[in-house]
């Protein structure tokens, strides 16, 4: 019972925080709101029986990814004044997108409503760390390896792309 109430509460928080995040002029605020939304989502994950994922959500998303965002924002000194000349989109820009989003939502709702099978509800259940570990390192072992490669590629790529001109020139001088 309390889980249900919590779900709706957390859902509302997630929605509200996300909504606030996307309309912020200053990206820093947006990131902060997003972190709030991520926390709410992490709790929902926990409610839905995924404590490990919930923890990772907090650690990786809020702790790593969002902080990376903050770093970049601060590094680039992106403030509303110099971020762009017309940073906050007005109604004119929002209207078609809102329409689009609404259509999308309506369509999804209709799709959901059409399927009678799903009206059962989510049972109370949680994955044991053992199950989780088994699946991850047995069935999905290959995926984990690929993902690790990918992460290292991404690191190299980010390093390469993010290099400054000066540094690039230096490197070329050396070679």
């Amino acid at each position, binding site marked *: 019972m309390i889980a249900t109430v919590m779900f709706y509460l957390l859902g509302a928080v997630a929605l509200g925080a996300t909504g606030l995040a996307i309309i912020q002029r200053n990206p820093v605020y947006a990131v902060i709101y997003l972190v709030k939304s991520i926390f709410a989502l992490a709790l929902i994950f926990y409610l839905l029986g995924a404590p490990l994922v919930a923890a990772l959500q907090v650690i990786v998303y809020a702790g790593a990814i969002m902080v990376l965002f903050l770093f970049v924002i601060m590094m680039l000194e992106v403030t509303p004044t110099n971020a762009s000349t017309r940073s906050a989109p007005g109604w004119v820009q929002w209207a078609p997108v809102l329409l689009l989003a609404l259509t999308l939502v309506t369509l999804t709702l209709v799709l959901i409503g059409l399927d009678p099978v799903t009206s059962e509800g989510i*049972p109370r259940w949680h994955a044991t760390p053992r199950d989780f570990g088994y699946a991850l390192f047995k069935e999905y072992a290959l995926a984990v390896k690929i993902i690790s490669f*990918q992460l290292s590629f991404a690191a190299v790529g980010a390093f390469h792309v993010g290099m400054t001109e000066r540094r690039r020139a230096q490197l070329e001088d050396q070679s």
Partner: protein
Amino acid sequence: MIVPLEHLLILATLLFAMGLGCVLVRRNLIMILIGVEIMINAVGLVLIGASAFWQQVDGQIMVLILMAITAAEVAIGLALVVYLHQQKKSIDVGIFDEMRG
């Protein structure tokens, strides 16, 4: 039963729509990336929900993988943002239209 699956799906849809709106409307590259994050989160929510619904861990593993991919994506993406900012001294998407037809 915690909650009907529909409600979860609705929540995810709304989140996804918001992320999408953010991507489409905002002109700030960082905000666009933030929009992408929101959408990925929404997808993650659905995966977790499905995982709970069928009581299988696969969904959760998907989310894990998703997170890793996201991290990679954000790393590359932000690096690109930094690079573009070096080139143009701006991160407004309107400026990056060299591929205009």
